[in-house]
């Protein structure tokens, strides 16, 4: 398989990570917490989507919408129950609470849904392009034949749609502008009359909606089980930190870097070391924290 094919895989992976990472990083920037339970929101969204598609005679896009609504509602309810009451206690108690909540949610889902992996029963169309020259450099082919599936296109298309909608939201709507103001300086935003609790709630809903969508995209692209969210949380986290925690645009860039690293390392690592490809994402995370903790965007995370 050529490099080009792996780049395509990387872009697909980067796309669903990006959708999730935007939500994660907005919560970080505005609620000021690292939400370790966020991976479980993806799982919840995916299962809501699967349940809808499996039991109701609705087309897939409707199931996706239901999953997004489900993710948004779940996120808001969980925030109101678990995070808003301890908002004043600082980042570490919030982080620890989210770890506890994540464990509880993950196992609750496992209890209800069982251990099996599920996927959407969709028809796949595969578009192949053959006869592309390999352009080899050493053992690696830079181009080579490649294919794109309809799932790939759906995932990437949804992600691009999300980016455009997000940009519109953050630049054109009052809520979005208030979100950015709060991310920059919460006290100043409050002085200027921003209802900070309402904005926090909006961010929770938005993050949940995005997580729901990301979960469904993972389910469309591969499959989901109770552990899906947890297995993605460190990648999401790595993407968000790489992009500069709190910066949604940075998170998009970070996600595609992570996606490409994941797919390229899977392709080029020797067999039996697949596990290492996820370690690569964590390695990037650690290296970013050490070398440039502020990520691609500037935000200081070291002690003064």
């Amino acid at each position: 398989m050529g490099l080009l094919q792996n780049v395509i895989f990387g872009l697909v992976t980067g796309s669903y990570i990006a959708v999730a990472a935007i939500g994660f990083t907005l919560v970080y920037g505005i609620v000021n917490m690292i939400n370790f339970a966020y991976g479980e929101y993806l799982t919840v969204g995916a299962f809501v989507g699967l349940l809808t598609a499996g039991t109701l005679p609705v087309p897939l896009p409707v199931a996706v919408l239901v999953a997004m609504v489900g993710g948004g509602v779940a996120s808001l309810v969980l925030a109101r129950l678990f995070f808003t009451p301890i908002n004043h206690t600082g980042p570490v108690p919030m982080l620890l609470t989210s770890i506890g909540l994540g464990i509880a949610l993950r196992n609750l889902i496992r209890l209800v849904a069982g251990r099996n992996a599920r996927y959407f029963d969709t028809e796949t169309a595969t578009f192949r392009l053959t006869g592309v020259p390999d352009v080899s450099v050493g053992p690696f082919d830079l181009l080579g034949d490649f294919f794109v599936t309809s799932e790939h296109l759906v995932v990437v298309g949804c992600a691009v749609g999300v980016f455009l909608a997000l940009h519109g939201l953050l630049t054109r709507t009052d809520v979005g502008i208030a979100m950015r103001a709060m991310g920059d300086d919460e006290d100043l935003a409050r002085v200027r009359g921003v209802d900070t609790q309402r904005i926090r709630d909006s961010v929770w809903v938005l993050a949940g909606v995005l997580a729901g969508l990301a979960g469904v995209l993972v389910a469309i692209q591969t499959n989901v089980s109770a552990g899906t969210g947890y297995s993605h949380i460190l990648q999401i986290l790595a993407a968000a930190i790489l992009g500069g925690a709190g910066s949604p645009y940075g998170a998009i860039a970070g996600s595609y870097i992570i996606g490409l690293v994941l797919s390229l390392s899977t392709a080029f690592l020797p067999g039996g070391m697949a596990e290492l490809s996820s370690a690569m994402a964590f390695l990037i995370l650690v290296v970013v924290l050490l070398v440039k903790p502020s990520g691609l965007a500037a935000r200081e995370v070291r002690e003064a």
Partner: protein
Amino acid sequence: MSVADRLPLGDAAGNGALLLGAVCVLLAAVFALTPLVVSLPGSLYVFFEVAILFAVYGVLVLGLDLQYGHTGLVNFGHVAFFAVGAYAVAMLSARDSFAGVSLGLPWPVALAGGVVVAALLGAAVGATSVRLRDDFLAVATLATAEIVHSLFVSFEGVFGGNVGIGSVPQPVSDLAGDADTAMLATLLLFGGVTLFTLAAVTRLTEAPYGRVLRAIRADELVTRSVGKSVLTYKMQSFVYGAALAGLAGGLFALYTGAVAPGYFTIQVTVTVWIGMLLGGAANHRGVLAGLAVIMGLRLLSRFALGVMPLSADAFASVRLVVVGLILVAVIRYRPAGLWGDAEELGVDT
């Protein structure tokens, strides 16, 4: 209060633990080295198993409490140092393991090696990470633990992959002869080690040394501005915690006779963290008690499993739901834990 209040520096608590630890180790030696043999009722096995694991995790939680409880370092990758200690000891001491490296060195050498390797990993992680803000230190250490875990799984030729390293010597079993006596001797020996650890960390934290650590937790800049080398103390605290975790890992490997990635999941980190927070960070005996509560729950759940109309799998999920909610509830309703000092920890109750 007089000038000499609390001089002699909490010696009573430290010395008590030291003495009790010595008694435990002596008793362990008696059972292991003499022909004395005990036979335990089969129904008690499960208690002994959990108690031995408690002693091992006790060393872990005391190291973590030095790092977080006293110095404020949010290490959420504690299992990595535990695992590295265990693997190092296993690889150094194993003879002809089925998979991975086995060097067949004498176990005391291996145990020392395990502590050193864990301390070195602690120094490497510490040197790069202790400058990070609390929540990002948590993320960096957690990611480190995941990297370590995947290295163990991936490099089969070295670490034995999912099978891990086997044929690790079990010195206590070898000396004691029969299984029951070995179990009792192991519990006494490990309990002794935990008590020695308790004595050591108590001495450290009751001394002026601990005052500096707690000052760092409260405000690094002030601590620096009165002339204390904050970074050095943070490094030391982190490395000592890592070395203790390595010791715990080494003991674990020499007890089970095998190590595999499955023993070293994030669940270990979560268990010791919950134990520490439940007991009350910065209170050494408190964190041990908190750990006892959490592990007691595990024991209880083993018995409950027998009477519940649930599969073992479903039951494990239920238990973890409860564990997760305990963590959430402790932070919300008892942020200083059961035996912690809310004012000392700077939390509202």
